[in-house]
């Protein structure tokens, strides 16, 4: 994980000293990826928005304790992904499988790219833990070591989840190809 850029450090410093415009800059910079990451793990638009929002609220509550030498993104993504995994597991426990989780009816919004739709729908067929590491690796672009650190997992577990998740995803995508 590289350290924060000068601009981000300035935003964090500003937000810590009470500047709402600096907080807004941080929010605008980090919202899209946090929201997308949550969405790709939970596959529920409303829940993803809620998880991203909750993560920012948690970040705001703990802003004073944040070490501004560290990058903001990993701190936020750790909250987002952990909450998204919890949410997805809780939904499974509640047997709320229903239509929203069906790969066929997965709403990818206006993506315009059939492969993107296929990937998003394919992810829906994976376990939440597998989705999470794939999203962290390929959307948020963390290394397996960084993912292990952020999710408090052994590195071997991250690697095996990545491998199994990718295999399963490929299997799903192959099945969907003409």
């Amino acid at each position, binding site marked *: 994980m590289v350290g924060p850029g000068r601009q981000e450090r300035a935003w964090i410093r500003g937000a810590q000293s009470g500047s709402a415009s600096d907080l807004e800059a941080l929010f605008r910079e980090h919202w899209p990826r946090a929201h997308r990451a949550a969405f790709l793990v939970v596959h529920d638009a409303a829940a993803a928005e*809620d998880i991203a929002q909750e993560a920012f609220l948690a970040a705001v509550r703990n802003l004073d304790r944040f070490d501004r030498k560290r990058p903001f993104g990993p701190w936020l993504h750790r909250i987002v992904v952990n909450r998204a995994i919890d949410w997805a597991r809780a939904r499974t426990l509640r047997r709320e499988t229903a239509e929203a989780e069906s790969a066929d009816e997965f709403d990818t919004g206006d993506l315009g790219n059939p492969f993107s739709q296929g*990937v998003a729908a394919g992810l829906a067929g994976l376990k939440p833990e597998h989705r999470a590491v794939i999203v962290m690796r390929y959307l948020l672009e963390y290394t397996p070591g960084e993912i292990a650190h952020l999710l408090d997992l052994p590195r071997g577990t991250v690697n095996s989840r990545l491998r199994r998740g990718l295999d399963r995803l490929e299997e799903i995508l192959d099945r969907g190809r003409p």
Partner: protein
Amino acid sequence: MSDDLRRELQKIQAPDELEGQRRAWPLVRAAFEAREPITWPRRSLRPVFAAAAGVAILAGALSPPGRALVGSVHDAITSEKKKGRPALTSLPAPGVLLANSSQGPWLVRFDGSRRLLGPWWDASWSPQAKYAVVTRAHEVAAIDPQDKGRVRWSVARSGSVRGGRWSPDGFRVAYLNGRSLRVVVGDGTDDKSLRRAVGATPPAWRPTADHELAFSTVDGRIELVQSDSAKTLWRTVPGELPTRLVWSEDGQRLLVLGDRSLRALDSNGRRLWSIGLPIGPSGVAFVRRGHRFVMIRFSPATGRSDLVLLQAEKDPGEARFLYSAPGEFRSLAISPNGRWLLVGWENADQWLFLRLTAAKVQAVSNIAQEFGSFPAGVSWCCPASP
């Protein structure tokens, strides 16, 4: 595969991403502005919160996630539960409460005295709290709460009866009978079917209007009908089946609360906005004289409930964070003078009275014991005279 996957994932946008950002920012900003000074009296509990969070994290490391979440919520409730009065000895504002528990509806007076009104399944006030309309099994009735719940009239139907609601002028009572919506005159006469194939949501009379009644259809449309002529005034497109319909005091806004979404409609049935809700308890209550309302927002990820203030205008923005606690808030009621908000905090077995105009909260404990079970719904009557 890896490069393709990276490329494709980077292209995906979450549905409604920009709208979500627009909705989230006011809440984040409100939380940021509420950081210092803390609005509600939680400052002294901060170290306790930190300890509870530490316990939760430890639990998360040692136990399965589901058990950890339950455990952490329990710990946090124990820590955050407010020291309250052991019993309800008075209400903080004038008015009378109607609290629906599993034993039946209870009348609670300003001095805290209470009385069970009988073995009814649900109840709601007549416009000036002179009577209450109650239902159970196959019966709808009007009872006099001041006279030990004496029945003034009742109507029996073959199908199940529920969701009785008295019109604002007192001359009509609407109720659900199976899949039908029926209306009876306020003295119990002239009982008629108004619509068939309606949803299970209790109907809602539009305030300040002449017998206009909002209800949901089985396909999730919201319809406004003039009950005397049976004429449909407007009807929305199908949507999520709502659980509650709540009008603003001036009848210009209608909130449509579902399990997964909240929609705000204007007086012509046009949608102003819609927001997604997480699974869990939710509730809304309009603040008096305006289009601002308090909403319960439960987060399954943290197991906490927040109270936030939003507005039923074209933009729900300017949201204000009011209060937060672990567990679930079950009911909301605004005092007739508009200054107090009653919140049912079921996990802590407390009613919280939050003063909306100042940083003050009063807690009353042992609610389930007082009412036989924790009341699922509470209404606080009646609107103060202008």
